[in-house]
């Protein structure tokens, strides 16, 4: 059985982590490389970086960040944000990311999922979707897919898009609830569960974690394989080792991260 994964998420703009992360002693909190190393050493099972750089010209800065992160951490990490073409995907994979996360680009051009899976393998392609309870009656699952950082509703049902994404070749699905994002009220378990019950690829819950029990709920009731964490870890209230201990005590299969590196190499 696979361990449930805890995945810290870092938003990066022009090479700097943007969400206020003030707690980390002796860490340059704006530096994505230092933060990646910190979470790696804390026992994160994977990391995700979202490039929220507005302009294309500055995209190269993110590639430099990816390259620097890849030299420091030896767990998988994915990169998302503004990836629209196969070349965009190739760029971050060659720089050292294990996976790419595509979102609005895949809604606008679903063939991107298939092309990415064919070129790099479906295990490299995470379909990330922003979902919202907009009340659109056409969306039977109760959630609508929205794009452009939540600004543009698409009229697509979240569950349908998830199944379509799997059919097109996505290796994993990340379900990010716009309603819950930043609220710390817990993940949207209902949509996470409906999607996870229908697809045969891993599902990542995202948006809303504020308490350790929210992760437990995502892994049990929500049937999630992994959970994205942001403010719950960024502000230091619930460090990853503590989250892992809590989950393990509650019967969840969790990876024990050990520190074994020889000092003198």
């Amino acid at each position, binding site marked *: *059985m*696979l*361990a449930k*994964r805890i995945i810290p998420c870092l938003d990066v703009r022009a090479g700097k982590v943007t969400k206020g992360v003030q707690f980390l002693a002796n860490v340059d909190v704006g530096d994505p490389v230092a933060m990646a190393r910190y979470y*790696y050493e804390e026992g994160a*099972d994977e990391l995700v970086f979202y490039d929220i750089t507005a302009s294309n010209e500055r995209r190269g800065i993110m590639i430099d960040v990816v390259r620097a992160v*890849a*030299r420091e951490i*030896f*767990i*998988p990490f994915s990169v998302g944000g503004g990836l629209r073409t196969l070349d965009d995907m190739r760029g971050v*994979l*060659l720089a*050292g990311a*294990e996976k790419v996360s595509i979102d609005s680009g895949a809604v606008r051009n679903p063939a991107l999922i298939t092309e990415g899976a064919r070129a*790099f*393998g*479906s*295990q490299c392609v995470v379909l990330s979707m922003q979902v919202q309870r907009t009340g659109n009656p056409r969306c039977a699952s109760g959630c609508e897919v929205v794009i452009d950082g939540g600004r543009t509703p698409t009229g697509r049902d979240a569950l349908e898009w998830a199944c379509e994404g799997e059919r097109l070749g996505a*290796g*994993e699905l990340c379900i990010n609830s716009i309603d819950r994002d930043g609220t710390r009220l817990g993940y949207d378990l209902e949509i996470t569960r409906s999607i996870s019950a229908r697809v*045969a*690829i*891993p599902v990542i819950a995202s948006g809303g974690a504020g308490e350790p029990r929210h992760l437990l709920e995502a892994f049990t009731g929500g049937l999630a*394989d*992994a959970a994205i964490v942001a403010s719950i870890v960024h502000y230091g209230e619930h460090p990853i080792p503590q989250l892992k201990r809590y989950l393990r005590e509650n019967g969840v*299969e969790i*990876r*024990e*991260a*050990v*520190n*074994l*590196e*020889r000092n003198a*190499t």
Partner: protein
Amino acid sequence: MIAIVDYRGGNLTSVARALEHLGHRSEITDRADRIRAAERVILPGVGAAGASMANFARLGLTEVLRDDVIGAGRPFLGICIGIQVLLERSEEDDAQCLGVVPGVVKRFPAMVDGRPLKVPQIGWNRVRQRRAHPIFDGIPNPSHFYFVNSYYPAPADPSLIIAASDYGLEFCAALARDNLIATQFHLEKSGAVGLRMLDNFCRMKA
């Protein structure tokens, strides 16, 4: 010098970065003479067994790997696709493989106990060591390692299996025979335990 075989399989640089982090010199190469001259050889990779075999043939590396490196008993580490190509045949595209380890590569079952099994396996799975081996020096038993695979090796001789995991069924996660070592999991993406195993390989007596 450690040669990392470049057969256009991807994921080569992450192994090189891990070795660099550990302080071991390595070279990513597709040149037969460099691979033959290397003290140790690592065959990493992501992809399909058939495509990898086709690339070995195109690059003139099939015999180099099978005879000059593995056949000659030189220290060899295969990772992920690098374990699968060692067997005789893979169910993936019905590909012929190097055949240095008797057995086949099988696909995970689609259904287990009436429920669909998520394939590929993507994530951290528990690896149980079946017997002592220098590659496991300092590694807690069991430990979690990072896997990304739809297929798994099934060696005909179970005594070659040095570690096993469960995913729908029990499968061979690592095998060894003399200086030949191979893992289905990604050592270069498995955190401290993965780095330690890579380091152990680099320090094993040749």
